[in-house]
């Protein structure tokens, strides 16, 4: 029997040897060299380093696939259509795929490893998503818990977005968060100026990103954002529009309204803006101005619980019920297109009401804040 420290040295030595073997093996065995990823049938070809997941490799190439879980295979958002070279569907992906996706080759890009050349298909809009560095130019207090942040893109860059889309804002590591997180916020500014964007953000108690933006970010600080994302934008038809939004859900509507003004869009449109108390109301003047600038636009703020003693001459009640009453009086309720933005609860009940009134689901567009 040898003394304890020699025994420890022997065991540690074997452990170190095994670790070194593994490091060496990883260099040699897991070295897949460079692989080529063909995007949209030759539209774009990228030579990338093999071995990593498709998601992380694309991100490194500045192609941003939406993902909420950071590549752990638990959110199911990072779906990408792989035409060739991904191998069979893994058990870790199966729960997120329906029959159609299985047969058309949709995969979770965080689970697909780059071992050989790949052919993938991406929606064109994902290719326009870029990362930008911006400078916080102005912070405006709208209410006690809602602020507007104006971010100017650096280096004279412009962001080409469709009014209604959103961006992701990066909250860096700071006192209260040990990791970087991305959160999505709709663009609210006038799309005529694409060199800067405005975001209307409501504070989430203990939220990592809103706490950073509300308590730590100062005018002049740099903010990293990427985008634009999303399918929430005004469809090019002549159907009358009903907008329903709650709280900071007004943001994409404001952007869409700016654009309607810029393009002299004279579609019939009515905007029901739901808030809890009169203290939650903001942007009312701006909206009233749209009423004069747009031929057929009407703004209806709806307060659900006016505080006792508050002077409120406007509409009181649940925003969804008020919108329902309005549509019933129109006679042509089923011809409307519905645009919804706000809390999941508000969206769900609005969808229910619009469907009940004969608006089909493909005419209802929404952005859910969750």
């Amino acid at each position: 029997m040898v003394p304890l420290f020699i025994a420890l040295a022997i065991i540690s030595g074997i452990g170190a040897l095994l670790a070194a073997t593994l490091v060496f093996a990883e260099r040699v065995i897991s070295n897949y060299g460079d692989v080529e990823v063909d995007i949209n049938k030759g539209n774009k070809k990228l030579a990338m380093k093999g071995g990593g997941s498709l998601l992380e490799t694309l991100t490194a190439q500045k192609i941003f696939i939406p993902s909420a879980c950071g590549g752990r295979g638990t959110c199911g958002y990072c779906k990408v259509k792989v035409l060739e070279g991904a191998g069979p569907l893994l058990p870790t992906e199966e729960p997120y795929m329906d029959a159609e996706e299985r047969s058309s080759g949709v995969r979770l890009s965080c689970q697909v490893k780059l071992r050989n050349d790949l052919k993938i298909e991406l929606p064109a809009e994902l290719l326009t998503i870029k990362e930008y560095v911006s400078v916080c130019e102005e912070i405006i207090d709208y209410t006690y818990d809602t602020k507007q942040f104006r971010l100017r893109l650096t280096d004279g860059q412009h962001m080409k977005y469709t009014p209604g889309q959103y961006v992701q804002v990066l909250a860096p590591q700071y006192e209260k968060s040990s990791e970087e997180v991305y959160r999505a916020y709709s663009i609210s500014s006038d799309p005529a100026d694409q060199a800067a964007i405005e975001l209307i953000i409501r504070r989430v108690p203990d939220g990592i990103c809103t706490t950073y933006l509300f308590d730590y970010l100062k005018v002049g600080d740099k903010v990293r954002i990427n985008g634009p994302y999303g399918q929430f934008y005004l469809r090019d038809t002549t159907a009358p529009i009903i907008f329903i939004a709650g709280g900071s859900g007004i943001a994409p509507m404001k952007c869409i309204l700016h654009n309607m003004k810029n393009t002299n869009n004279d579609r019939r449109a009515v905007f029901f803006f739901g808030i809890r108390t009169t203290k939650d109301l903001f942007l009312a003047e701006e909206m009233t101005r749209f009423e004069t600038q747009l031929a057929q636009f009407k703004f209806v703020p709806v307060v659900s619980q006016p505080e006792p003693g508050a002077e409120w001459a406007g509409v009181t009640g649940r925003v969804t019920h008020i919108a329902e009453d309005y549509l019933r009086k129109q006679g042509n309720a089923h011809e409307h297109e519905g645009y919804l933005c706000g809390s999941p609860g508000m969206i769900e009940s609005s969808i229910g009401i619009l469907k009940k009134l004969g608006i089909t689901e493909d005419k209802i567009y929404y952005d859910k804040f969750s």
Partner: protein
Amino acid sequence: MSLGSHMLHLSVILFAAIFTDNILLARFLGMCSFLSVSRQVKTAVGLGFAVVFVMTFTITLDWFAYRFVLQPYGIEYFRFILFIVIIAAFVQFVEMAIERYSPVLYHNLGIFLPLITVNCAILGASLFMVIRDYNLAEGIAFGFGSGAGWMLAIVAMAGIRERLNNARIPKGLQGPGITLIIAGIMALAFIGFTGVLSGG
């Protein structure tokens, strides 16, 4: 010992490990993945093969480590740490290798490998090998047999659980509850093998 009786001796160890001394149903090792990955026969077979493979090879590696490192220096008391390290390194290495060279095998086996590193049946088999003072051939037979026994048990369990999907089970017993009861009944059934072989 003649070759014939030697082979007989080895096959007794092998079959004892599979049936009479089943590492799962007689020793209750490797219960965690047994309970969680036994919903489908297909995945149970995959995990089963992975266990057979890893157990056979790690018991061999552990035998060499024990015989040529731990015993000569008289530091057998370090076997727990050393065996675990060897198992973990081996599993990592195999995962890397089959991911690179055999995508088909990786798809069927590889995704289960990380589950195995922490499967106590693997470490258990190596420790039994030490306690029973097996030589190399005996150790390999025992490792392969234990793996096969574990696979037999999990595949049988998965077969039963697939049938259970059509059974009406009281709410409080659904999931792990009924699975544990079945494991107990299976263990009772395996007691029937006791005395058939005397190698364990």
